């Protein structure tokens, strides 16, 4: 059978995420418990997590997490890595031997700094330099795959039920201020660790439940701007859309949301003229990045967490707050499992984002006109 990445495999899923808006770090134990309660939403063919704030000792270094098929390819990659980056520290990603997880590839992490001379010579911003390297490895080097590349954050994923993957990666031993998790239900067996969620690029991580029907449109648009969709998954495309709109286009979150889950024309027609002109322009210019079909995603960044549904809410998502904590999950049970008495629980409407930002977040964030009840945890 063809490996995932060569073919596109639809899948359904469970997602869960939580954050502390003060940036206080907490153990990965809760997120494992939360995703475990939704066991039946996955089928043991993929699970994963992303944690933010987990590498305080290397917080200014890019943390590359790799899957290697064998030692030879690891050596090839290290040669390349040494050429473009200074490796501050590297080690195998710690794992626990468990009965449930089999056939693990070589999993290694490198904390690196781009060689500044080479960045300058390349004439592109440092982040772009890192992105190019990630794209190059993932699309050109057979048997090596970078599945995490941000600073002070990391993705952990593999083939298995998410709770087993969490256990395998010893996530109870990490502390982070944002955790997201994913349990996968793919429709056939790729058995490839890279196919699991989250999907990440720099510090953006995406976990996603859905099958987007706009995949072909989104992908072909992104490919014009150098993104290589090696995985052929919706989630990869989602991560790239966020990267393109937020980092490359420098757009604020509200604009990103209006592009990805645009208001309906009947809503736009009711907006005041200035806002109508803006949203119309967003739809006209970024129409190819509208994400169509059922989806519920959780996007993590160093600055906070965003949850978004497709605009007619074809996939579930529930949000809750308790003190400084924000929770979002596919099912309310996944929140109640770890936070039995939230202050507030609600089901966000289609296309209505839940935005949880750290109190000291630096993102460009302005909901100028909030006639829709858009909820940000810090507002």
């Amino acid at each position, binding site marked *: 059978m063809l490996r995932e990445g060569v073919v596109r495999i*639809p899948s359904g899923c469970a997602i869960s995420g939580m954050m502390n808006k003060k940036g206080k770090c907490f153990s990965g134990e809760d997120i494992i418990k939360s995703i475990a309660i939704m066991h039946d939403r996955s089928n043991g063919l993929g699970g994963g997590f992303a944690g933010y704030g987990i590498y305080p000792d290397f917080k200014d270094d890019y943390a590359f997490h790799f899957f290697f098929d064998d030692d030879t390819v690891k050596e090839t990659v290290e040669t390349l890595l040494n050429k473009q980056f200074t490796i501050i520290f590297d080690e195998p990603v710690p794992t626990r031997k468990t009965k449930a997880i089999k056939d693990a590839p070589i999993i290694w992490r490198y904390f690196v700094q781009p060689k500044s001379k080479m960045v300058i010579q390349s004439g592109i911003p440092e982040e772009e330099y890192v992105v190019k390297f990630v794209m190059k490895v993932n699309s050109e080097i057979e048997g090596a795959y970078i599945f995490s590349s941000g600073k002070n954050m990391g993705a952990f994923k593999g083939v298995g039920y998410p709770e087993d993957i969490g256990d395998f990666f010893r996530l109870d031993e990490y502390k982070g201020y944002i955790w997201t998790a994913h349990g996968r239900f793919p429709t056939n067996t790729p058995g490839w660790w890279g196919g699991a969620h989250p999907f990440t690029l720099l510090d953006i991580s995406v976990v996603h439940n859905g099958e987007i029907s706009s995949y*072909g449109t989104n992908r072909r*648009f992104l490919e014009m701007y150098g993104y290589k969709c090696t995985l052929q998954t919706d989630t990869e495309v989602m991560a790239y859309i966020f990267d393109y709109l937020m980092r490359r286009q420098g*757009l604020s979150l509200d604009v990103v949301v209006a592009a990805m889950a645009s208001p309906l024309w009947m809503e736009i027609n009711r907006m005041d003229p200035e806002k109508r002109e803006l949203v119309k*322009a967003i739809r*006209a210019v970024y129409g190819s990045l509208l994400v*169509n*079909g059922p989806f519920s995603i959780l996007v993590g960044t160093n600055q906070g967490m965003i949850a978004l549904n497709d605009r007619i809410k074809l996939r579930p998502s529930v949000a809750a707050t308790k003190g400084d904590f924000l929770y979002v999950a596919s099912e309310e049970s996944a929140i109640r499992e770890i936070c039995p008495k939230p202050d507030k629980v609600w089901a966000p409407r289609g296309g209505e984002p839940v935005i949880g930002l750290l109190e000291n977040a630096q993102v460009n964030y302005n909901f100028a006109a909030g006639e829709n009840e858009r909820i940000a945890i810090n507002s």
Partner: protein
Amino acid sequence: MTLSYLTPAFLIERDNKRCIQCKVCVQQCANEVHRFDEEEGEVLADELNCVNCQRCVVMCPTRALSVRKSPNEFRQNANWTADAIKSIYIQAETGGVLLTGMGNDRPYPIYWDHMLLNASQVTNPSIDPLREPMELKTFLGRKPDSLVIENGKLKEKIPPQLELDIPIMFSAMSFGSISLNAIKSLARAARQEGTFYNTGEGGLHKDLYEYGANTIVQVASGRFGVHPEYLQAGAAIEIKIGQGAKPGIGGHLPGEKVGREVSETRMIPEGTDAISPAPHHDIYSIEDLSQLIYSLKEATNYEKPVSVKIAAVHNVAAIASGIARAGADIIAIDGYRGGTGAAPLRIRDNVGIPIEFALAAVDSRLRQEGIRNQVSLVVAGSIRNSADVVKAIALGADAVYIATGALIALGCHMCQKCFTGKCNWGIATQDPQLVKRLNPEIGAQRAANLLRAWKHEIKEMLGGMGINAIESLRGNRLMLRGIGLTEKELQILGISAVGE
């Protein structure tokens, strides 16, 4: 004059039990096929001039008439077919170029019919357009590389865009090639359904200025009827370089069709031939095209998108890329099956390529070059139904142009004799008696109905695919699968085969 070897192409059958000798057929036939024999007291027909336009058949109150292919046959010959032999008789008699009307009718493959659409099952839900919003709004025009937004407001306006409620427009047909009533029908339908019609190269009749907001004004090589008010009148300007039915050649409106109104509108003397040169004589290269694009933009204060229309020819991808870089906001591509009021038969039937391939090649090329977002792509020639529209958009078009389909809605029966000026349906004629057969109120209603019917069908297909906005279909070739295509054809179309 020697004996003509031509024999009738059609046989008119009159059921004498039904015929009431009312002479409607006699009055209706501009080709004078039917006549009333006073002596015999009955209606007779001489089929030699019959074009099978079906006017008499439809108008006959007792349904006494039918027209079919003449049973007369040449000796069977797979090489020298009747068409081949008759063409030679005509040319031997006239010494002229064979003329024809409407699009290429040869049995080349129709690639739309070799592509099948996807639908959602289980892993994602289909969407019911009767219960959920289904959005078809489309913008045509240059899109900026990024938006400049400040304090939640758009700081820089985006370049001018055509806003379509349905991704279907009426393609260019000039006043001259078709009647004023036909144009009025399309203009009204366009206004009613939130889309656009195109003047063609015949200028804008004074009665049509009121439809300006739904008009694309064309500038062609003859520059007929082009003046500042004309350019200002439309919502967009289209430079016509070529036409799918006759790539590489110009046009010829015979003097007989240039009556007072056509003469006024085109700004040429009454009764003179209106000849459009093959090339624009101020465009011999891509940089010349760029100058014309910017001249037109200057003349209209950069307030209107400028489209460039070309015929689909072998090197269309590179040409389109050049046009995008020359500053066009919209590229219209007309496939080899595109219609025409008059074209040399051999050109129509042998020059150009199918729009399906031209579209796929252009869209892919513009994406490879990273400039697809800078221009909109409109395709034409021949979009026959709503499924063709959906397939075209999935291949990469922003919108489509229809013309033949629109004329059929007005009553055209595809007799392919537009160039004679004797259109019995009041469409491709300037004869006042014939023109008034087409009531623009009714014509507008029929054309608008067609758009609405297709709109419903497009929504159903989109919903089936789990898509609720047309922009998510654009270029989404994963929604297409090829059936009965070669590896190479699939590769150029950029689609997988059925079952893959």
